[in-house]
């Protein structure tokens, strides 16, 4: 017990005393020059030019801009476009990568926000997907559809199959299972709100379009089958258009 506590303390101590992350990454500029801006956007004024062969420290990245510091102590933002080709300290040529379509094919995670229509009511959805292979993607999704008479909440686990992942505009089929919870409007129910939960089956088709950087647009059509009673089913139709970011 005592030894484990001591070990834990030592580990904690090591964590706290481990050298702080080095101040950025040192690279040598290979392109003829790079403009340094006062902020991470092209609108911010240029105030310095980094010359070819100059050593700089890359401190951080934001939306396609690198914060860098020169050896003379100047610091500012350089766009990723003008800093793609550099040398590392060991003389090796390196490419600072920005998300591209190629990387979209090697993505691991994708998170999305969607707006759509579920049986004439406005629906909002969020999704988180884990990419198993280039063709197969698993996803969990949550939808809230707010109508004049009831509120519907849908949660599902889905499987997408991308037949042509090498296409920028890539179609997919989707199958899923989940649950739907329907709560009638409070003013329609006399004795408090009574909600019911039913199982749900989903099938649909969709398109994923690589837009730029690390984001994509998705359009999806689904037929949903709510298993209300043993012999009763309700069929629902859903359209959604959204926007997803991959990592």
């Amino acid at each position, binding site marked *: 017990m005592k030894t484990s506590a001591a070990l834990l303390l030592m580990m904690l101590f090591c964590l706290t005393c481990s050298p702080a*992350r*080095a101040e950025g*990454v040192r690279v040598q500029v290979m392109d003829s020059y790079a403009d340094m801006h006062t902020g991470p*956007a092209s*609108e911010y004024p240029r105030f310095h030019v980094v010359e070819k062969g100059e050593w700089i420290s890359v401190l951080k*990245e934001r*939306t396609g801009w690198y914060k860098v510091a020169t050896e003379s102590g100047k610091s500012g933002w350089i766009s990723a476009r003008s800093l793609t080709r550099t040398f590392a300290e060991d003389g090796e040529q390196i490419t600072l990568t920005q998300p591209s379509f190629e990387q979209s094919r090697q993505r691991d995670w994708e998170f999305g926000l969607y707006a759509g229509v579920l049986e004439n009511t406005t629906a909002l959805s969020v999704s988180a997907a884990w990419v198993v292979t280039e063709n197969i993607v698993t996803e969990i999704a949550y939808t809230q559809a707010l109508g004049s008479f009831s509120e519907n909440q849908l949660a599902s686990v889905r499987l997408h199959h991308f037949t042509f992942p090498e296409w920028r505009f890539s179609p997919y089929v989707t199958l899923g299972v989940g649950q739907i919870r329907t709560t009638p409007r409070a003013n329609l129910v006399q004795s408090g709100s009574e909600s019911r939960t039913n199982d749900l089956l989903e099938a649909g088709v969709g398109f994923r379009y690589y837009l730029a950087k690390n984001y994509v647009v998705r359009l999806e059509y689904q037929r949903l089958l709510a298993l209300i009673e043993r012999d009763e089913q309700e069929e629902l139709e859903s359209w959604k258009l959204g926007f997803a970011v991959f990592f």
Partner: protein
Amino acid sequence: METWFRRIFLSALAMISLGSPAAQAQQSIYEPEVERREFNEADIDSENFEIGAFVGVVSIEDFEQDTVVGARLAYHISENLFVEASAGFATAGQTSFEVLSGGAPFLTDEERDYTYYDLSVGYNINGEVFVTDSLVLNSDFYLLVGGGSTEFGGDDRFTISVGGGYRLLLTDYFALRLDVRDHIFNSDLIGEEKATHNLAYSVSATFFF
């Protein structure tokens, strides 16, 4: 850890070289030590997320106004575009009818809880603020539009939110924000259904990570 290894290695080396002075004569152990770090792009910190808390005032149509508190999480897609999820909480007051008549309340205490979330897309118009000749802070004015849900009066209502704000970056990663947003949803709590406008002003402190 590395230093330990180096120390052990160096002392071992020193012992060996002491043991064989001939070897010491042949080659110097004091080779120039150039520390070369291996390049790893993951060492470059990415700061595209922004997280923060806000406090402000929301005027709930027909139901007075209250302090609203909440949180925001944004992801910056490009230098101009960002997406943001916000959630807020307030408590509604009484309608003027309830106050004047002194009669039965429209809503229970629980139904007066006003909770909302929204998912918005924002557009930044970048700029700078010249505080003094030498102190210049980056800032931006942004416009937002989004959809979400408001739970009020025992129901969830689809809510459209539109607004704008101002972000002042005190450092690269810490910002102060002023937001004005109108949350619009249909309500039939006091009679016929109508679109209600619920204006919220807020101040937030956010961090980029």
